[in-house]
């Protein structure tokens, strides 16, 4: 066995140079795939994740259609090359579970009742994983849904907090997730102060848990601002290109 890894040094600095309550650098892009009705891409630290939305469209197979609302389907999937040891492309039990909780995270946000008998299909492909992929996946999928023009009550934003090296930390990376004491992924609708995804593994007292939740929600609010900027940036780019053509 290797010696114990120091996750937080005596100055309160983490393995990747971050402070305890600092997010990883985040890059968001909206509308990057031409076939999908909506798409987006996120880089959060070393995570690289694509999301695409198809729909509302006709449901296949047809018997799955719901008479009073749209059927939301979600697939969270990791590319075989996204992790250290090749991952079999067949969906693992973890991926099936995450697809379910991510779908449930979005159901309260989308006006599904506006599109009865249709399906909205949400695909999240993790191209490179470095911890916190379900949260980054939710954050980027939310932009893909907005890009597809699907009416939502709010953007869903997700971020994890947890405990690593004896300290409460925000936005755990892979090594903090694996070697740390606890990980709490949270998805949130900031305008409603409503949590739509919550999981935890590890060991925490109630007091630590309460602090960690608040930390995660603070992280969510920061990412929420980035999400809005990314959406505006897409239309800003369209506007600018239109202005250029007019001048010509």
């Amino acid at each position, binding site marked *: 066995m290797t010696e114990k890894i120091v996750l937080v040094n005596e100055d309160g600095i983490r393995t990747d140079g971050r402070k305890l309550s600092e997010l990883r650098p985040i890059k968001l892009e909206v509308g990057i795939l031409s076939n999908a009705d909506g798409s987006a891409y996120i880089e959060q630290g070393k995570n690289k994740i694509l999301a695409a939305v198809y729909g509302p469209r006709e449901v296949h197979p047809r018997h799955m259609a719901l008479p009073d609302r749209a059927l939301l389907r979600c697939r969270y999937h990791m590319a075989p090359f996204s992790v250290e040891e090749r991952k079999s492309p067949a969906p693992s*039990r973890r991926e099936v579970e995450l697809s379910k909780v991510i779908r449930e995270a979005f159901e309260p946000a989308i006006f599904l009742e506006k599109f009865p008998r249709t399906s909205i299909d949400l695909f999240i492909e993790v191209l490179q994983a470095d911890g916190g992929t379900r949260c980054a996946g939710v954050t980027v999928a939310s932009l893909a849904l907005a890009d597809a023009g699907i009416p939502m009550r709010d953007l869903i934003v997700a971020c994890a907090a947890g405990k690593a090296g004896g300290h409460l930390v925000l936005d755990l990376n892979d090594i903090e997730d694996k070697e740390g004491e606890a990980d709490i992924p949270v998805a949130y609708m900031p305008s409603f*102060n*409503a949590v739509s995804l*919550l999981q*935890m*593994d590890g*060991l925490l007292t*109630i007091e630590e848990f309460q602090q960690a939740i608040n930390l995660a929600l603070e992280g969510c609010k920061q990412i929420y601002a980035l999400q809005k900027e990314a959406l505006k940036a897409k239309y800003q780019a369209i506007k600018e290109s239109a202005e250029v053509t007019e001048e010509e």
Partner: protein
Amino acid sequence: MTSIMVSRIRRQQIAQLIADGKRLDGRGPKDYRPIQIESGIIGKAEGSARVRLGKTEVMVGVKIDIGEPFSDRPNEGVLTTNAEFVPLASPEFEAGPPGEESMELARVVDRGIRESKAIELEKLCIIPGKKVFVIFVDVYVLNHDGNLIDASTLASIAALMNTKIFKYEIKDGEVEKKPGFSPLPLRDVPISVTFASINGILVVDPWLDEEEVMDARLTIAFSKDGRICAIQKGGSGTLSPQQIIEAAHIAKEKTEELREIVVKS
């Protein structure tokens, strides 16, 4: 699944009662249904238990085998949890490959046992990096009347508590069984408490009718020392941060009661 109209009427009725602090089956918001635990009911399994939580009935069998450790944990035994929604348990269950519900159930039960470090996996190594004990926890749902997570967690931990491991000796790098058994080394008794949020009000141990109308489900598991060891939110509704903290405090209290029932059984 009941029809949309029936579920809406039912929902109204259940939600109205809950707003008055009552429930359709006469329980209070923090009351569990009666719990019955029978241990060691399957002689062929190394450990077993059947839990009845009201009309919900879950059986767990623990089987032990010898296998390879994970490459990143060469000195530890392996825990594998699986859940089976047997078609005789509910008109909703169908035979076939496991669906997302049963995978989620298995993973939430597993999370409670694993994260509390309930099984002393480091004592289950036979030959480091080569041979370890593999503990299979198989959850068998026999009658579904709601709150499968808590019933399955109770049954799993009850089964692990009466699990015995065969004695062995190593001959030329091969493991040979010897007569006699020793108990599975356990250091914790993780217990989960599941809530349904119905119109923003939390009730514990939802039965099937409440599950069908609930907005969201929240499971919180606690280890013996009163720390949270697993959480899972389910369902297509939301919870406020205040509700989550309130649930954690109620759950801590309830897990202590439930743990006593398991330990005494």
